């Protein structure tokens, strides 16, 4: 059962990823990316990481990709021109990617404490314990300082974006909709 679902959604994931590259229209590519991310969420779920799965759907499929499609729609981007690119890139690129992927996979599977996961089993050793609980233990006890520092970093990024977007001397419309003096 788990294996069937795994192959089904891994297939969706790969098909979406290939479609993402083949499509010329940006909105089709964005939609393929949504398929990829949602299938990935199902794969996480099969590995027993239910919180990660739903976070993937809420954050990536739900929020990030909505912004992507929003921007594509707002700019009304047309079809892309297809270029052939350099021959060297096609000849060296694909084997290089395959080799890199193989090396990384081997290292990750052989590594101490990592190794292959089993479908349909939880991430924790204790049965019946939700990995939400374990995750919050790690985030809010063991790694509290990095977690808080990251949120400050994101806050600074938001402030930076606001500062960049705010043009000097521009008028901010007040709540009545008219430009303030």
């Amino acid at each position, binding site marked *: 059962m788990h294996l069937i679902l795994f192959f089904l959604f891994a297939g969706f994931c790969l098909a979406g990823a290939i479609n993402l590259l083949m499509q010329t229209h940006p*909105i089709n590519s964005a*939609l393929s990316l*949504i398929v990829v991310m*949602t299938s990935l969420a199902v794969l996480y779920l099969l590995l027993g990481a*239910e*919180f990660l799965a*739903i*976070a993937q*759907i*809420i954050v990536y*499929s*739900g*929020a990030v990709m*909505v*912004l992507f*499609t*929003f921007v594509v*729609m*707002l700019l009304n981007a047309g079809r892309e021109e297809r270029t052939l690119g350099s021959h060297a890139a096609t000849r060296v690129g694909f084997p290089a990617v395959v080799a890199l992927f193989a090396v990384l996979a081997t290292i990750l599977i052989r590594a101490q404490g990592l190794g292959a996961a089993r479908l349909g089993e939880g991430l924790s050793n204790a049965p019946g314990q*939700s990995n*939400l609980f374990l995750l919050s233990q790690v985030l809010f006890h063991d790694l509290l300082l990095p977690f808080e520092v990251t949120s400050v970093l994101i806050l600074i990024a938001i402030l930076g974006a606001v500062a960049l977007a705010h043009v000097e001397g521009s008028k901010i*419309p007040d*709540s009545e*909709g008219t430009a303030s003096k």
Partner: protein
Amino acid sequence: MTILAFFLWSLLKVAVVTVVMLMGIAYTVLLERKLVGRIQNRWGPSRVGPFGLLQPLVDGAKSFLKEDLIPTAVYRPVYLLAPIISLGCALIAIAVVPFGAPAMGPRGFDLFEISNINIGLLVILGITSMGVYGIALAGWSSNNKYSLLGSLRSSAQLISYELALGLSLVGVVLRAGSLNLRTIVDQQATLGAATWNILGGGQIVAFFIYLMAAFAETNRSPFDLPEAESELTGGYHTEYSSMKFAMFFMAEYGNMINVGCVATLLFLGGWTSPLGDLMPPLQSTLINALLPIFWFVIKVFGFLCLYVWVRGTLPRFRYDQLMNFGWRFLLPLAILNIVGTSLWLAYR
């Protein structure tokens, strides 16, 4: 329980819940037409069947029989996909909603919830966030300026209010210490209405934020800017006709029901009786199975009436008012609510 029995029971539950949900959607439309009619001092639909009760069937037949018009300039695949996404997301969310007492079926089988999972609340939020695509893609693929404006408005509105909506639920989750909807209900149902999150739980501010954000999330008046008929001639569904329009229509009402279910579960004690232990437990299994469903339906019904009441009363917001309200009022209020709830829980 064997795999086959589990599969068959689940299939039965899915079929029953889907049919009930579709009927609920049809009759919510009638409820709205009747109530808005009375608010505006007229009768509402009253010709088809007794009290106009067969009106939804006639409406459905009308949508099916109308000519299905597809404009030439639309981008077909996405145009056809959009209403399916909308309605699909509206119907899927009900899968994790518990609407009756737990473990009433044979051998402790959960008869009154399709799937009891420990992240039920997050699943509902996730599915809601996917529902945006239906509206956004419908507007874009229609190749119409009004539609595109409507869908851009809706994307911005949904993203903005999703934040306030999600944050308003954190207080409840903090109190329950779980994302499982059954646990959340059990935690607030100890003394009946006195311990509901909205009253004894002190989450009335969260309920207020949730209410406002939910109106915006479901594109309902006073936040129905994506379809504002006076300026956008229908917004994202301008180019849709016949059954495809009906699918958007059903999705909107389905989302209303979903939002009502979530509000009931999180703030109003779910399927439990407001009397709590004041009423002695009954001996009859049938009554013990049906009474929780009665309470659940009554609460959701009240919420739907509130929706209609607001629609009949308030005028539409302007776009900048909408954004100001969401970002400058609801969001800080939701964060303050989280801080306040955390401090209170830590102090206790």
